[in-house]
């Protein structure tokens, strides 16, 4: 901040002093991207916080907290437009809460073993490089197709897969599907698990899974996914607060305020840009963040020894 904006603020839970503007702009930049691409942004916020020396446990818990804000306003919009399947979403929430409960338990265990930071980084590297790679591939294909003048057809309606042969079927009117509740619960559970360990909403996995696995029509996918994310991240936030005391509301407020403002402008810009190019850009960004995290795993640390308060008697950490 060349103008001497060095407004420091002490984060009570992360226990470090940070620059208010850096965090506000971080929130705004991720909010801008999430508005532009229609993603939650949790998968960018959490690694960025870790790069900014926020302890990973706090970054994950606070990441989940800030996802609520952007997802809530999105879900509300979709609810008013009627592009939200409450029944399907609620079933996903049931699975999600179960998955998040298991996730919190694993989170505490990893923290006690001193392996949390490593596992969080590894999960991010795997997911960011996979999702980023697939998105880049898909968008480059789409760009090639448009250049060749072909129409892209992503969805083949009416085609059924193995998912549709599972028992306990249920009818979801808003989505116009008749599908077993098993894959719905499993999908919700998997997203909930990732939400609690990685501090993400999980929309980047949920949306393609709903489209390709459950054959949910694209117009209700985003709204229903956001609906599930609001509830699961809210549950995760409360669980993180009670078991790990690692939710930093000062940090979350800075990120959310920036995020909400950034998202509005992002959405406006997003409507003017071409879809494939936008997706290719996001894919490259996702890959870059993943690569940065991967490099850190291999770089020799300054000090191979570290000290921390034993968790059983932890009073201040």
């Amino acid at each position, binding site marked *: 901040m060349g103008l001497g904006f060095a407004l420091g603020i002490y984060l009570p839970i992360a226990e470090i002093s940070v620059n208010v503007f850096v965090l506000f702009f971080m929130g705004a930049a991720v909010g801008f991207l999430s508005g532009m691409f229609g993603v939650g942004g949790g998968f960018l916020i959490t690694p960025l916080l870790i790069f900014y020396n926020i302890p990973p446990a706090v970054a994950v818990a606070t990441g989940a907290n800030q996802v609520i804000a952007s997802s809530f306003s999105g879900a509300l919009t979709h609810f008013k437009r009627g592009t939200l399947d409450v029944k399907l979403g609620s079933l996903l929430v049931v699975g999600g809460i179960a998955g998040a409960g298991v996730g919190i338990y694993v989170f505490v265990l990893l923290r006690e073993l001193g392996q949390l930071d490593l596992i969080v980084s590894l999960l991010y590297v795997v997911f960011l490089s996979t999702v980023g790679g697939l998105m880049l591939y898909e968008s480059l294909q789409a760009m090639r197709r448009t250049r060749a003048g072909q129409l892209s057809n992503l969805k083949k309606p009416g085609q059924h897969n193995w998912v549709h042969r599972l028992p306990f079927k249920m009818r979801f009117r808003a989505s116009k599907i008749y599908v077993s509740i098993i894959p719905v619960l499993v999908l919700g559970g998997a997203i909930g698990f990732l939400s609690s360990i990685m501090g993400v909403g999980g929309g980047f996995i949920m949306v393609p899974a709903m489209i390709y696995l459950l054959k949910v029509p694209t117009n209700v996918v985003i709204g229903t996914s956001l609906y599930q994310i609001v509830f699961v991240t809210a549950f995760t936030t409360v669980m993180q607060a009670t078991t790990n005391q690692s939710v930093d509301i000062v940090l979350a407020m800075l990120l959310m305020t920036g995020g909400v403002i950034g998202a509005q402008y992002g959405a406006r810009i997003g409507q003017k840009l071409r879809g494939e190019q936008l997706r290719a850009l996001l894919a490259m960004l996702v890959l870059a963040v993943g690569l940065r995290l991967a490099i850190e795993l291999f770089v*020799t640390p300054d000090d191979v020894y570290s000290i921390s308060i034993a968790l059983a008697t932890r009073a201040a950490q």
Partner: protein
Amino acid sequence: MNTPAAALILIIALAAGQQASAQQLPGNKETVEIGLSTDTIAITSGFRGTDLTVFGALDNADPLIQRQGRYDIVVVLQGPERDFVVRRKDRFFGIWVNAESVSFQHIPASYSLASTRNLQDIATPKIFGQLSLGVNNIFYEPIPDGFGSSESLKEFTKELPRLKLKQRLYNQRPGDVQFLSSTLFRATLSLPANVPVGKHIARAYLFRNGEFLRESSTSLNIVKAGLEFRIYRAANQYSLLYGLFAVFLAVVTGWMGRLVFRKD
């Protein structure tokens, strides 16, 4: 950002008379006293660390020994005891992973020392060992887990004070106890920015001709003040309410964003 006071000055209570607990060696009438003007220090969240000045008195000193400068004083401020884990990273398939670890119990979270001279010039290592005085003489008690070999115990016991010194939570300042007169002395200790809250104990050790005479102690409570610390306390004491409030804040922020920027 609030700048902390350059130094927290704690004035002596020049207590007359000896403490009942003070060891009484025959023929040694010297007494050492330190006193603090306050029993509580409140530090705010902008605290970046500071010097803590402690005044003390050496009474009934032998004027001859005093002139020869053969009285030595060591002042220590020791933080609350906690359990700590020391971990070592090893390489697995090129990735650095926390591998071996040793837990220690009843370790002072912080330890600030000031002395008239270098410790090795004051008395023999044996005496410091008996007194557990000095960063290298604190008793680092490992919690036995049945796994660690004696070599790794030794290795981690050596790393613990090094890591604490690196974090500035442990520090030693030889030469920072100074006599202001024949009886009055001043010790300057470092309170690091990350000083732990809780009950700290200040101790003064008196040496004469390389021989330990007696010690006296007093306690000091360090608390954190300010909004940030109240948030911290709320997160720990009322964690469920805190979590629900965090969710509520997020929902309100999301909803406000919609109201302010609504176009549809």
